[in-house]
């Protein structure tokens, strides 16, 4: 449909643009104006996770198992939430010890083990090859769709090697990887051009996929609801339950989530962009949420596109091609081209980063160690050039391997199935790395056994069957096991069936991998180097760069410089050694003994170029004398970590001190306040005692000095003296009561108390006060059970206080007081005392229960309250888990209501829950 030359031209232009961007970014970086020191570029480069699998394959998967395609992105989202804890530690370790790859990380952690590094590199290459093949296949088939649509048959026809676009793509990518991936021999130096190009590709694929999604949803259909409504009536969609079921089952769902959570860290390309290319640990903060957001955006339209494709095309169209085919079917060639470029960018980004990461890994952890061991390197060889060339060769080999695998399995598999095989392979790195970071006890023997066994199980349960299904191996061994041994069937190992192949393989590989790692670590003896490395890795946040000084050795500065020079060039080597001496303030002559710090520094620099295991071998070859013993190193390490720990504790202490000071200050404030309140209380009591005393004394003296006073007046004055004396007595009693209750020294009884009876008895006891005046006292209510838990004497005091209060303030001439006991809301009993006095203004209703608060507008001539009666009522009510308040309108009388919980509720100790000390 589109002419072939135009597709080729656009592809070529795009690749040209990519080269340009990478070149430009490298130049900027060289001039110190780095583009990669930016959390957004970092995040976009992590989006290299979204490959052709995402771009084409997710749609394919969605047509079979509905929303299950999302697990591949939910897993990374969950892991991203933990990045600040896990990834940051990996980054810190890798930077500190110049670790350049997953293989190097594992090798270094387990005592700089060459065997482990080599094994990990092999697993990575074999594991990722299918994944690279997947990308090539996707590019090739998207090209064909673009070219031949709508001739489905032509699309699916295999072509000869020279006619296959995948080959040319592979060659172009190899060129890119070589140009921008092998600029430096030191693999810890950042590949800025590559990172920026990949970040750019992430933008392109997102824009392209969103365009496709918006086109399908809003152009072909009238938005989401229209699309979903029409899909819901489609037969295949209905029968598969794509809209509302999890066709693969929840087990597979969980497996895929975990697998992809591991993949986001342990895929070599992810490791490359998240760990090796990390400029600043703080960028992880942004990436932890922004990257999942990117995933969310790119997945929004996957299901709509899948559904639209199913309604538009028959079974002869591969669902992986829907994204491209939908706009083409509507005649939108330009949009098709944009989408093709998006898929192309998704595929190329992955291939570029993966090949570079693998090439560095294989060169540092497999090839160089072998060369060094074979002593194949004569001193005259320029090692730095050699290593760079090895990496270039490796890039070509890895791409070739991917291409061969692609030829082998071409079109036999859906994209996603191929990708998942790789996911299970890299998941093998999870146990040794995660255990190695958080558990010092993980040993080399355990890691080696676990990793080997996991890898073998992976080969047997996934890779071999995938090859068998292409027809290279006999199909029979899948169905019946090798030689007809049923329990060795690769998809039903040991007779366990019922899982899909991926879940099955994941289960077995993880079981043997983690199981052996744990089991053997428990029982193996660890060497000094292993223990040192374990301590360095697990406690990385306690260490500084200067820590790891293993060398007691006697190497001369000249030797070290020469060694370094062989790998990274003489000029560079002398610069590094000079700079190191500079920062330490040392002046180094060639013949002088190098300090242990310098030896260690050289080893670290070498590790960046040739891997940690090889670096160690090289350095030990020129250092005469032993490396420090384990004890020696641990002593140094402990000393530093103790210092760090100490300063940390100091910091902690000073924080605690600060807090204690704060608390003290607050307590002091509180004390001052209490003191003030106490002062106030004493002053109030004094005032209240002095007032009646004043009248008593004054009239006493008047009577004494005026013996001839007339009888009526004498009578009046004596009456005052008596009444004021009573008032004084009452006041003293109440102050004593109050202080007893407040101090908790009042002896409380806890009994079942019938409030009805209390009410009646209180009325009897106060009858005299009422009969003196003209106040009528009535008692109401009294039906039903009114039992509460409490102290009968105190409750009686409460009722009497309320009644006498009412007696004082009810209408002087036509006073009416009414006591009523009835049910309150919930499980409570209420005692209410109503008077027809002047009522209480709103501002006084709260404060009336405070000590010595007296309502301001009292009628003159009436005896006043002591100001304590209601305060005591409140204390008693609260001590009985109850509340007391007053309802009143000025001029309408007032009702004092005490509400207490009914007996049988969950009460506890009487005094314990009322904090009297704070009540003032």
């Amino acid at each position: 449909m589109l002419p072939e030359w135009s597709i080729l031209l656009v592809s070529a232009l795009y690749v040209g643009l990519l080269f340009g961007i990478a070149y430009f970014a490298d130049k900027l970086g060289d001039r110190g104006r780095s583009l990669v020191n930016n959390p957004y570029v970092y995040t976009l480069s992590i989006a290299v996770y979204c490959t052709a699998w995402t771009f084409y394959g997710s749609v394919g998967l969605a047509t079979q198992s509905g929303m299950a395609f999302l697990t591949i992105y939910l897993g990374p989202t969950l892991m991203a939430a933990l990045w600040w804890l896990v990834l940051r530690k990996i980054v810190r370790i890798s930077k500190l010890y110049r670790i350049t790859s997953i293989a190097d990380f594992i090798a270094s952690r387990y005592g700089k083990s060459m065997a482990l590094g080599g094994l990990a590199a092999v697993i990575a290459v074999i594991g990722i090859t299918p994944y690279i093949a997947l990308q090539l296949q996707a590019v090739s088939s998207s090209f064909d769709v673009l070219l031949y649509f709508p001739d489905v048959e032509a699309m699916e026809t295999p072509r000869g090697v020279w006619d296959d676009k995948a080959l040319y793509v592979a060659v172009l990518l190899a060129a890119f990887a070589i140009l921008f991936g092998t600029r430096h021999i030191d693999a810890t130096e950042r590949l800025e051009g590559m990172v920026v190009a990949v970040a750019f590709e992430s933008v392109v694929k997102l824009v392209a996929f969103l365009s496709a999604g918006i086109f399908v949803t809003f152009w072909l259909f009238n938005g989401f609801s229209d699309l979903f409504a029409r899909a819901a009536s489609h037969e295949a969609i209905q029968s598969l339950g794509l809209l509302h079921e999890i066709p693969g089952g929840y087990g597979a769902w969980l497996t895929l989530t975990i697998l992809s959570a591991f993949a986001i860290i342990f895929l070599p390309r992810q490791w490359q962009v998240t760990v090796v290319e990390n400029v600043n640990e703080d960028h992880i903060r942004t990436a932890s949420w922004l990257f999942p957001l990117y995933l969310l955006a790119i997945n929004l339209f996957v299901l709509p596109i899948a559904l639209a494709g199913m309604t538009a095309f028959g079974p002869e169209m591969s669902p992986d091609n829907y994204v491209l085919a939908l706009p083409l079917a509507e005649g939108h060639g330009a949009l098709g081209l944009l989408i093709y470029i998006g898929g192309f960018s998704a595929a190329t980004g992955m291939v570029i980063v993966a090949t570079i990461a693998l090439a560095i890994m294989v060169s540092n952890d497999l090839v160089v160690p072998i060369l060094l061991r074979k002593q194949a390197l004569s001193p005259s060889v320029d090692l730095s050039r050699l290593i760079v060339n090895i990496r270039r060769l490796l890039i070509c080999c890895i791409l070739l391997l991917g291409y061969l695998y692609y030829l082998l399995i071409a079109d036999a598999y859906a994209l996603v199935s191929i990708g998942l095989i790789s996911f299970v392979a890299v998941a093998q790195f999870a146990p040794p790395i995660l255990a190695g970071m958080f558990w010092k006890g993980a040993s080399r023997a355990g890691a080696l056994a676990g990793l080997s066994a996991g890898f073998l199980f992976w080969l047997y349960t996934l890779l071999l069957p995938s090859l068998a299904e292409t027809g290279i191996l006999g199909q029979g061994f899948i169905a019946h096991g090798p030689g007809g041994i049923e329990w060795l069937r690769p998809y039903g190992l040991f007779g366990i069936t019922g899982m899909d192949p991926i879940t099955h393989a994941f289960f077995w590989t993880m079981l043997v991998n983690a199981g052996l790692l744990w089991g053997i670590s428990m029982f193996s003896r660890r060497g000094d180097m292993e223990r040192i490395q374990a301590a360095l890795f697990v406690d990385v946040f306690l260490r500084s760069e200067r820590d790891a000084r293993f060398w007691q050795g006697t190497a001369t500065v000249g030797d070290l410089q020469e060694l370094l020079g062989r790998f990274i060039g003489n000029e560079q080597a002398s610069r590094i050694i000079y700079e190191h001496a500079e920062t330490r303030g040392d002046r180094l002559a060639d013949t002088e003994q190098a300090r242990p710090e310098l030896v260690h520094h050289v080893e670290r620099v070498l590790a960046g170029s040739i891997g940690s295991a090889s670096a160690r071998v090289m350095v030990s070859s020129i250092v005469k004398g032993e490396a420090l013993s384990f004890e020696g190193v641990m002593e140094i390490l402990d000393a530093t970590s103790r210092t760090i720990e100490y300063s940390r504790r100091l910091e902690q202490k000073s924080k605690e001190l600060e807090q204690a000071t704060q608390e003290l200050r607050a307590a002091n404030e509180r004390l001052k306040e209490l003191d003030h309140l106490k002062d106030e209380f004493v002053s109030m009591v004094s005032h209240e005692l002095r007032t009646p005393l004043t009248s008593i004394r004054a009239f006493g003296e008047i009577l004494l000095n005026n013996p001839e006073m007339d009888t009526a007046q004498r009578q009046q004055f004596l009456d005052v003296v008596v009444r004021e004396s009573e008032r004084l007595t009452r006041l003293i009693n109440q102050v004593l009561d109050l202080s007893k209750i407040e101090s908790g020294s009042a002896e409380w009884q806890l009994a079942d108390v019938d409030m009805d009876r209390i009410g009646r008895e209180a009325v009897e006891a106060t009858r005299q006060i009422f009969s003196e005046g003209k106040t009528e006292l009535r008692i109401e209510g009294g039906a039903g059970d009114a039992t509460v838990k409490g102290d009968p004497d105190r409750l009686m005091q409460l009722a009497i206080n309320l009644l006498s209060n009412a007696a004082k303030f009810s209408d002087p001439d036509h006073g009416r007081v009414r006591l009523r006991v009835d049910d309150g809301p919930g499980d409570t009993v209420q005692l209410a005392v109503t008077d027809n006095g002047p009522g209480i203004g709103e501002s006084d209703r709260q404060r009336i229960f405070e000590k010595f608060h007296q309502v301001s507008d009292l009628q003159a001539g009436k005896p006043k309250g002591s100001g304590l009666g209601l305060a005591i009522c409140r204390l008693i009510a609260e001590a009985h888990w109850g509340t007391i308040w007053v309802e009143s309108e000025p001029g309408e009388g007032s009702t004092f209501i005490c509400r207490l919980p009914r007996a049988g509720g969950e009460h506890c100790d009487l005094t314990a829950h009322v904090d009297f000390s704070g009540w003032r």
Partner: protein
Amino acid sequence: MSQEILIVDDEANIVLSLEFLMKQAGFQVRTAEDGEQALEAMEDHPPDLVLLDVMMPRKNGYEVCEEIRRRPEWAGLPVVMLTAKGRDVEREKGLALGADDYITKPFSTQEVVDKVKEILRDRQGGG
């Protein structure tokens, strides 16, 4: 014409006793039971001396004393404060506000009468 004393206190019994004492000492007496009433009573014509309680509803003794000292027409009007708050701080506060003397409750009847007489005599003697 005998001199007039204004007695201000919210405790009726204390007013009663002071009233008796002052009358017995030959003064005319007016009474008020809170600060506002006291000020109203003085608007009409000022008394010769005010016996002023501190703790009262609606305008306490301090406020009344301040008000008296602010008004020029009442300058020189003697104020004797009566209070049941016995602390030195309060005494000083009263004196600082311009009270002429400060009597703590419960008081000796003799002392009150003597003090009132003494202040009024000084006033007359002084001008």
